[in-house]
């Protein structure tokens, strides 16, 4: 029966000691430890929230970046297309111009060549005439210096005329 009979003295001391222990721990220990734990929890929660916010911000920035990139790509393509178009246009125009100009030049040169030909021919003719006159003069002078020949020549001419 000793085992299950509570003794008053022990209950008395245990009560006093436990109350003292409780008060000391409450005042000097639990207050601080719980405060620290709470502060840390608060800190962790805050930093987690901050991280979440930062993540969201980063996502927004990324999306913006992507949009900007897409826009830039579109613009680039547009510009390229335009540039190509302009290039082709310029090429085409240049070709046309070149053709016209070359035709013009060809025409002009042809005309010039024709004119030059005419002039050259006329000069040639004149010179030929002069040359033939000189030659005929000399021949005549030579022929006429000899009597026979003069007569022959005259006869010939008369023959030809006949």
């Amino acid at each position, binding site marked *: 029966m*000793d*085992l*299950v*009979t*509570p*003794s*008053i*003295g*022990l*209950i*008395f*001391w*245990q*009560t006093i*000691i*436990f109350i*003292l*222990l*409780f008060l*000391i*721990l*409450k005042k*000097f*220990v*639990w*207050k*601080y*430890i*719980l405060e*620290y*734990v709470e*502060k*840390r929890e608060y*800190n962790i929660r805050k930093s987690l929230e901050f991280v979440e916010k930062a993540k969201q911000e980063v996502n927004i920035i990324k999306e913006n970046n992507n949009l900007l990139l897409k826009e830039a790509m579109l613009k680039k393509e547009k510009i390229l297309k335009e540039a190509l178009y302009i290039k082709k246009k310029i090429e085409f125009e240049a070709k046309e111009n070149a053709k016209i100009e070359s035709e013009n030049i060809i025409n002009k040169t042809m005309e010039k060549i024709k004119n030059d030909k005419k002039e050259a021919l006329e000069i040639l003719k004149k010179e030929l005439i002069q040359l033939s006159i000189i030659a005929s003069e000399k021949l005549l002078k030579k022929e006429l210096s000899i009597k026979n020949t003069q007569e022959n020549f005259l006869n010939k001419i008369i023959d030809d005329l006949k």
Partner: protein
Amino acid sequence: MFDKINYLLIIFFCLNILNAKKECKKEIRFNLSQEIIEHIIDSHDFHICGNLIIPLPIILWDNGFKIFLSNKFYNQKIVNYSGFFYKKYKNIIYKTDKNGNLYFDKNGNPINKKPLDLSITKNVITIIIISIIIICIFLKMANSYNKYIMSWTFGKYLEPIILFIINTIAIPNIGIKKYKEYLPFLLTLFFFILINNLIGILPIIPNITGNISITLSLSLFTFFMIISNKLCWKHIFCIPNIPLLIKFILIPIEFIEIFIRPITLCIRLFANIIAGHILIFSLISLIFIFKNILIASFSIPFALFISILEILVAFIQAFIFTNLSALFIGKIFKKNH
């Protein structure tokens, strides 16, 4: 840390075997149940081993305080304290006449007057020492916080336990609104029981939580925590939406329930701890009963196994006591929504 505890356990067991050998040689008739009970219950002096006994102060209230050391009772002596005579019989102090005569009733129990015994017994001195240890540990812990971070290695082991009590015991049972009021009580209760359970496993040191007075006192704290709240009485006597006839049945049931709860708390812890100790002691006592050292090869491993089980039980019982206290406190608030 657990390695060290294991080594300590082994060393203590070895000491026990040595003790056992000595006592076997003396060939004293071995009364197992009496021996076990003597080891488990409280006593007026601290028996360490062999003949080494530390006397402790005895404080009696008998028309004034009477304080003297317990070694005056040795060899069944009668203590004369300024005209008052006292004698110790079966661990209880009785008031006697000059010659120290004790008068017995039919069952063999003395009918002499018993003075109010407020002695500093073995258990009291252990509680004081353990309380000082707890205060030292937790003061160190509270002072070694370095910007939210625990810088003390042992504190790092304790902190998860504190967080466990907050998150698993206090908040789910009491509710997030009120738990802060009761948290210091629950934490003190938990660590007091846990450290007492663990230290109680070691031989020489008495098992404090295996004493019904201690557990009764602890459960009384929970009891007063409950009844000091007005809401508790409100929900016993003013149950809404219930017919009058059923009220007459329900009110006594609810009323008795309040008193039964601390008793169950008290007996659960006491029985669990004492059962383990009795088991270990019985296993080791097999050596004395059979008077054969070879029995040690069987009983020591079993005792070691039970000791390790006891470590588990120490944690579980501390948890259960605190959890049920929190549950009973939490019931006050939950029923009044």
